[in-house]
C-alpha cells in the first residue's frame, strides 16, 4: 500500500507519521521526540524502518544519518532534506 504524503505536510505531522511507523516495529506508542535506542531499537529494526521509509517516502536514508538522528522528528527532517535534494 502506497502512502502519499501531501506536498504541504509540515515537518511536525511528518514527525508524527514517522513516530507511528516506528511504533509498528517497536511495538509501543511513540512520540516524535522519543529516542530510538531508549525505545529498544536496534540495527535489525533500523534495517526494516529504513526500508519502509524508502518504500513509502521514496527517500533512501543514510544509515549513519538515521542512527545519529535518533528521534522521529529528526528523521522527518532528513526525509524533508532528501525530498528537497531529489
Amino acid at each position, binding site marked *: 500500500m502506497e502512502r502519499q504524503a501531501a506536498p504541504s505536510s509540515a515537518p511536525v505531522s511528518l514527525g508524527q507519521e514517522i513516530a507511528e511507523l516506528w511504533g509498528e516495529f517497536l511495538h509501543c506508542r511513540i512520540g516524535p521526540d522519543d529516542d530510538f*535506542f531508549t525505545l*529498544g*531499537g*536496534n*540495527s*535489525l529494526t*533500523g*534495517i526494516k524502518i529504513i526500508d519502509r521509509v524508502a518504500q513509502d517516502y521514496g527517500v533512501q536514508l543514510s*544509515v*549513519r544519518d538515521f*542512527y*545519529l538522528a*535518533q528521534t522521529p522528528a529528526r528523521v522527518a527532517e532528513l526525509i524533508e532534506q532528501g525530498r528537497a535534494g531529489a
Partner: protein
Amino acid sequence: MRLTPGPGYDVDLDSVDLFDLDLYTSGDPHPIWDAMRAKAPLHHQVLPDGREFWSVTRYEDVCRVLGDHREFTSERGTVPTHLGTDDVAAGVLMTSTDPPRHTEVRRPLGAKLTARAVKSWEDSIRGTIQRFLEPALDGETFDLAERALLLPAMVTGPLLGIPEKDWEELVQLTAMVTAPSDPHFLQGSEAATLAISHHELVTYVKEWVTARRAAEGGDDSLLHHLMSVRPGGAPLSDEEIALDGYSILLGANVTTPHTVSGTVQALVERPEQFEKAQADPSLIPNLVEEGLRWSSAACNFMRYAVDDVHIGGGTIPARGAVVAWIGSANRDAAQFPDPHTFDITRSNAKRQVAFGFGPHFCIGAPLARMTLRVFFEELLQRFRSIEFAGEPQHLRSYFIAGMTHLPIVAQKRRTP
C-alpha cells in the same frame, strides 16, 4: 589493557567495576583478576542501572561455562555489551545458537577451515605478510597496532571473497563493534556506533549475496560456501547467511591484530625471548601459543545460566548472566606456573583458551594459527631487532583486549 601487570595494588573486590572502560584503556585488570581467582572465584557485580552479572575467572570454571551449553546457554547473547537485553539474533546467528542447531550449521563451515584445508593458502598468506612488513623495513616509525587492524582483511579477504576496495571500510565497521566508545571509532553515541556498524555489516553481506545470486556463478569463497551449505537438509535463510557472514567478518578482523601487537610488544620488552626465537625458528609455533595466551584478545564471553548452578564456590541463579574471563583463565597459576611470565618455551602454552572452549571454539583458529606462525617466521627472519618508538595506546573495550597504537622501529637483518 596492560598485558604485563604493574606493581600489585590492594583490590577491593566488593567495589570493583569490571565494566569500567578506563580500567581497560589506561588501567591494569590483571591484579583484579588475580584477586578474584584467589578470593572470589565466583564474583557478583551490580551495575548502577541495576543490571547484574556473575564472573568466573579460574581456568577450570571458564572452561565449564564455555563448554556446557546445557548449563550455560548462548541463546540470550554472548557479549557483555548487550547484558540484560536478550539477543535479537538468537537461534539465527551461529554464536548465539546452542547445539544441536549450532552443530548442524557449524560442521559444514568448519570443514572448509580445518588445518589441512587452510594449508593450501599458506603461500599466498606468506606473500601478503611480506607485503605487510615491507614498509617497516626502511627503518621509519611503523605503527604496528594501527596497521595490523588491516592485516586480517588482507589475509582473509580473498578467502572470504571480499574485494580489496571494501577492506578498509569493513575493518572500520568491525572495529566499531568491538570498541564503540573508543574515540577512534565512536560515532555519536555508543548505541549509535553499534547500530551503524551492525547495520552496515549485515547489509554488506546481504548485498554481496544478492549480487552473487544475480551473477549465478559459484566460486570457492567462504561466503559463497555459506550460501550453498544445507545444514539439516535445508539451505540457510538469507538472514542466517547475513548474520553468520557478519560473524565471520567480525571474528576474522577484531582479534588477530591484537594478538600480533601483544606478542610483538612482549618480545620487544624481552630481548632474550626475541633472540631465542630468532636462533631457533622451530620454537615459533609455541611462541604463537604463548602469544595467544599472553594477549587473550577475546577477553571474555558471556552466557546465561539455564537453572540454578553451583560453580566457583557459589551459586548463579537461574537466568543469571555469567561472564567467563578468558584473559584471566589464561593467567591462572593452577594451569600455567608463573602465569605473568612470557615464556616462548612454556611447555603447556597450547592449553591456552584464547580461542574459547567447547562448541563455540573459534572456527577460524587453524587459519589464525597458521597466519600468526607465518607472521612471526617472516618477522624474525627480516628484522634483527625491534624497539618501541612511542607509548602504546590501548583499546577502549572490556570485550576485546587490544591496542590502537604501538609505534615501533625495526632494524633490518643482514641477509644471511
